[in-house]
């Protein structure tokens, strides 16, 4: 009997091409628009943000290093100088900075151009640069002297930021802070006699959504997930809309008079909501996989998340249906479709990863079905396994249970009054 209700619901969707278009074409269009608007390249998984940095060197690091080593022979025993000569490559500050800025990991969103001191004014007039990093003369010499001989305070880099590119400048600032910390760490270790050879530049963590310690997540992937979990919410509203019209037209009464338990009908809505949410999600992800190459490392984990999220949408569908039956009005469904779903989308991070702004917002976002789904999908995409998303899965299941229980309490006992 439940199957008949699901089949009927499928036929109703099929006979309503406008609705199908909204459910399937709209998220795909939104994914394309948002992905493109944020500068992502869907084919090569590049970053949504591009930055240009000008590196302006007033001195020559190699000459300064050679000078430093030469001067060192007069101040330290030969064995110590030899040891330092062996590790000097890892200690060279500009080389380290360049290795960070020009590393493969960041090359798809960070372009570094080198200039001499005479070109400074020309670069300042070029708005395309996010920052100009000036390396003062004898910077490397002073850094090495500070680390090895503890003679001087570490010198500073002069950085000029482009104020019109606030997000990008904050990323560059973050890079340089990390670099500065490495230098300080090197200086501290050197002063305390710890082997300098062990010092490595740590992987850089920025504030861009696409950078992660594991697999990077592109803007296209992010918005595929964001738009999918948002649009599937509307399916709950659509199913509730159909259910309410079944009541309005006395079709529900007809079903009850056929000695079909109201719980069968109730389960029909829940199951239809879950199945069609699952199908909708799968279609959008399959499309994204075929067109944009977005794929999940573990298909089983992906299916578990999709099912849990679909179940929460089924729960929402049955809750909205029960409430509209109870209130004898579809206002609640309209309110959900027009206000609540959008609010959930914003809180859940479908439009922007607002959770990055504060842990509290992240927690609130994860307390929405779409937010929990989005976090779970992103975590899987970054390479984590099911163990990393148990909280999100637990929330989705608990949310589904809660909606079903509230819906069951609200659902009419018999038919509905004429």
């Amino acid at each position: 009997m439940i199957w008949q209700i699901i089949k009927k619901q499928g036929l109703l969707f099929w006979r309503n091409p406008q609705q199908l278009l909204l459910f399937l074409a709209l998220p795909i269009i939104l994914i394309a628009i948002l992905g493109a608007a944020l500068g992502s390249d869907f084919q090569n998984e590049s970053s949504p943000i591009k930055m240009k940095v000008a590196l302006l060197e007033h001195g020559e690091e190699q000459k300064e290093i050679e000078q430093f080593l030469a001067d060192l022979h007069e101040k330290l025993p030969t064995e110590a100088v030899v040891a330092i000569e062996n590790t000097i490559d890892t200690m060279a500050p500009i080389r380290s900075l360049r290795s960070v800025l020009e590393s493969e990991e960041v090359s798809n969103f960070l372009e570094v151009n080198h200039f001499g001191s005479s070109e400074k004014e020309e670069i300042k007039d070029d708005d395309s640069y996010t920052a100009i990093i000036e390396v003062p003369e004898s910077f490397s010499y002073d850094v090495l002297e500070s680390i090895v001989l503890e003679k001087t305070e570490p010198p500073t880099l002069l950085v000029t930021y482009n104020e019109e590119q606030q997000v990008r400048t904050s990323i560059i600032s973050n890079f340089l802070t990390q670099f500065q910390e490495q230098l300080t760490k090197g200086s501290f270790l050197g002063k305390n006699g710890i082997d300098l050879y062990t010092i490595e530049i740590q992987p850089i963590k920025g504030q861009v959504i696409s950078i992660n310690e594991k697999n990077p997540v592109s803007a296209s992937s992010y918005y595929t997930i964001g738009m999918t979990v948002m649009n599937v919410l509307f399916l709950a509203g659509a199913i509730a809309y159909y259910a309410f019209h079944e009541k309005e037209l006395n079709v529900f009464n007809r079903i009850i008079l056929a000695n079909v338990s109201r719980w069968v009908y109730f389960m029909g809505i829940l199951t239809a909501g879950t199945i069609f949410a699952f199908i909708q999600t799968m279609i959008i992800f399959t499309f994204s996989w075929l067109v944009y190459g977005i794929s999940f490392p573990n298909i089983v984990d992906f299916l578990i998340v999709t099912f849990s999220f679909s179940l929460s949408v089924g729960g929402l569908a049955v809750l909205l249906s029960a409430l509209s039956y109870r209130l004898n009005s579809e206002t609640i469904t309209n309110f959900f479709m027009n206000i609540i779903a959008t609010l959930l989308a914003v809180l859940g991070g479908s439009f922007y990863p607002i959770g990055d702004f504060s842990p509290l917002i992240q927690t609130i976002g994860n307390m929405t079905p779409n937010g929990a789904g989005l976090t779970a999908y992103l975590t899987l995409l970054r390479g984590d396994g099911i163990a990393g998303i148990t909280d999100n899965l637990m929330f989705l299941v608990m949310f589904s249970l809660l909606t079903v229980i509230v819906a069951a309490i609200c659902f009419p006992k018999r038919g509905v009054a004429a």
Partner: protein
Amino acid sequence: MIELVDLTKKFKQMYAVKNLNMFIERGEIVGLLGPNGAGKSTAISMLSSLVEPTGGDVRFDNKSILKNPAAFRKIVGMVPQNIALYTDLTAEENLLFFGRIYRLGGKELNRKVDEVLEQIGLTDRRKDVVKNFSGGMQRRLNIGVAMLHDPEMLIMDEPTVGIDPQSRNYILETVKRLNEERGMTVLYTSHYMEEVEFLCDRIYIMDKGNLIASGTKDEIKQILSSEKTILIRADRINGKFVEALEQHSLINRVTIGEKEVTILVPREANVFSEIIKLAESTGLELLSVDNKTPTLEDVFLHLTGRALRD
């Protein structure tokens, strides 16, 4: 077969139905008459076990159906006032869906669908989407769905509202045929008096939640045995004439139409000459003055002072 005992439904402080008593025997067509808001649909909803009454009982073969309605639901087919169909589906898809809901399947379901389509005259439109049907065709399909499981009894809640006369006649003929050929019991509610007169063996008349009359057509018309109805037609009814009628001692009730006035007078009274005199004195040009055979409409008018479709 079915008995309603002191059936009452109260919404907050208002009685939708108050102490309704009625019975329906097998094979009967029973009419439930009343204007909009009389409580007919609420009574039907309670009778069909969809709405719990505030008081009273509904008994099917001497057993209350309020606690355990399953046995009664098996033998009843409901034709609601609304078009309770999926208008985006075809006629056949609707019948197949509701047939399966009634636990029919396989060849039996297909045979039943063919049979019902034949009965309601929609065999050649079976593949058409319902929203493209005329109002009359939708009403016929609405009835067809209720007949899928071969019910013993049909409850029809104003099944001819808003359709053309041809479709209306088709539906009335279908109901009559189902009763005569299959012995189907029918409870038929309407505010169209002529439908009830055509179809029903016995009639219940409701107004404002109360039962105000019941019996066979003749029995009900007997209510008017002490009075007769006179229909006065004129080019234009004027106020003075109506006022004069209302003040006349022999005239019990005056109902005004656009070009006609209906009056109720004692059966033995001869008021023709009086009417002509009043018309002359008030400057009214009479077209005709007729003795009218009493109808259920007249009975309703007599009992409530209002026309059924007011």
